[in-house]
């Protein structure tokens, strides 16, 4: 039957409903600040929002958005190629290009459509795509649509990438290499310095998805490639406006003038309504703040380091390095569900992630840190995890 393949998911949802636990689609009923809200009737610290700089609730961004609604109305009602290209879009694209120090930028309606659209379009039949095995779902969706030969390299393994490029021989001239800055599940950073060196040796084009690293890493916040000092080796930067910039939308920037022709070949750009002007306005203001206030990044990393150390000291199994994504890895599904609910009861909202969305068979309690979190809030999050251990819900020896 058509619906048979959904039975496993239906059973899982029924299991959660039976326990009255809602880790997927928990409803935020009220926002108190960038880091506090009412979720499922409880006042909680928001520790699963990807709101890395807290800008979704910044008064300047809100004011910019409000002014744009007055000026432009609520929506564009069309795609960029039809009636949906407003002066605001062009201004944001110019500012994104300037931010990245390149001449070309495209803005998309979501981050998903940016990475999916670029990866589906850049390489086509006869070309090769080499992607990191832990790439985001949007990238896997895109490459599947591309018609190119798709080859995975082992996650964050430059030697494996080199081997695969060597095997391709002359075909590297038609090869797109895809890596991410920070991987969204465990918060691990790509070894971009090594990736770039290998690209220089063997050839190919490099796209870096900075969705979780733009505004977060690098001297001026451009991301992991800037932090690694390899921006000149990157052909395409992709990313999102929905995390550090607190809005929604996505982007691709490039030094290649061909991006302007590519723009007219990207189906998720052509056949969807463009970004609503109020979002463009808040994004532009957030970008200005990212450029003007590097201290936000310092605060973010101080908080990330504090949470990472606090949870490490509890004996929990985390990702490999300090990052604004701090994921606790558990081996057991029922345990992950119970812990997620206990954290909510203790006043902390985090993300629960289950395979296959996780990079292994582990279950994750995924925390994302914000510059807007106070030190006290970070300590309360650590305290909530400590109470899981005190209550016997986690035994460090049983961690994944």
């Amino acid at each position, binding site marked *: 039957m058509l619906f048979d393949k959904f039975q496993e998911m239906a059973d899982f949802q029924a299991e959660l409903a039976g326990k009255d636990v809602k880790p997927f689609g928990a409803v935020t009923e009220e926002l108190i600040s960038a880091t506090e809200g009412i979720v499922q009737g409880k006042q909680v610290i928001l520790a699963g929002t990807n709101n890395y700089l807290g800008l979704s609730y910044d008064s300047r961004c809100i004011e910019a958005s409000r002014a744009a609604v007055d000026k432009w109305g609520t929506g564009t009602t069309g795609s960029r190629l039809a009636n949906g290209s407003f002066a605001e879009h062009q201004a944001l694209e110019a500012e994104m290009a300037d931010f990245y120090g390149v001449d070309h930028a495209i803005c998309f309606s979501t981050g998903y459509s940016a990475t999916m659209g670029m990866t589906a379009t850049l390489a086509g039949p006869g070309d090769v795509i080499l992607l990191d*095995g832990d790439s985001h779902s949007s990238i896997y969706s895109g490459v599947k649509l591309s018609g190119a*030969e798709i080859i995975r390299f082992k996650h964050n393994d430059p030697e494996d990438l080199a081997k695969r490029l060597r*095997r*391709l021989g002359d075909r590297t001239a038609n090869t797109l290499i895809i890596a991410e800055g920070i991987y969204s599940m465990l918060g691990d950073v790509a070894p971009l310095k090594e990736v770039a060196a290998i690209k220089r040796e063997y050839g190919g084009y490099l796209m870096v998805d900075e969705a979780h690293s733009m505004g977060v890493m690098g001297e001026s916040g451009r991301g992991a490639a800037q932090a690694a000092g390899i921006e000149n080796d990157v052909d395409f930067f992709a990313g999102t406006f929905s995390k550090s910039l607190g809005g929604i939308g996505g982007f691709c920037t490039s030094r290649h003038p061909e991006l302007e022709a590519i723009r007219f070949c990207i189906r998720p750009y052509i056949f969807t309504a463009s970004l609503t002007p109020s979002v463009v306005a808040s994004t532009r203001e957030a970008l200005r703040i990212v450029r003007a206030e590097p201290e936000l990044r310092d605060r973010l990393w101080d908080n990330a380091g504090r949470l990472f150390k606090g949870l490490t000291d509890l004996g929990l199994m985390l990702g490999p390095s300090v990052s604004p994504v701090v994921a606790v890895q558990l081996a057991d599904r029922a345990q992950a569900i119970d812990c997620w609910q206990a954290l909510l009861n203790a006043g902390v909202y985090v993300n629960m992630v289950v395979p*296959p969305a996780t990079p292994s068979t582990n279950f994750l309690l995924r925390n994302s840190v914000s510059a807007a979190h106070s030190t006290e809030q970070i300590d309360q999050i650590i305290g909530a995890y400590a109470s899981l251990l005190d209550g016997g819900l986690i035994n460090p020896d049983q961690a994944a």
Partner: protein
Amino acid sequence: MADYREYLEFMYGALGPLNKKDVELTETTDLVADIGLSSLEVMEFIEKIEDHFDISIPLNILPDVNTIGELAQKVQELNP
């Protein structure tokens, strides 16, 4: 390059630790329906083959592959 039989023999060996239901491994054994490999395990299995024979196996072939024999056949076609 290896031939079909060599790919097959290697695959039988590599599937050993993943064959938790201990089903008999033949050319017609289905990787998912019979052995019960998860998508993650399929990827691990593919990586073992790639490392052993120093080849890259494109993901594009996977929708057409169900059995061990079909995989060996596809890999041989890609690496004649």
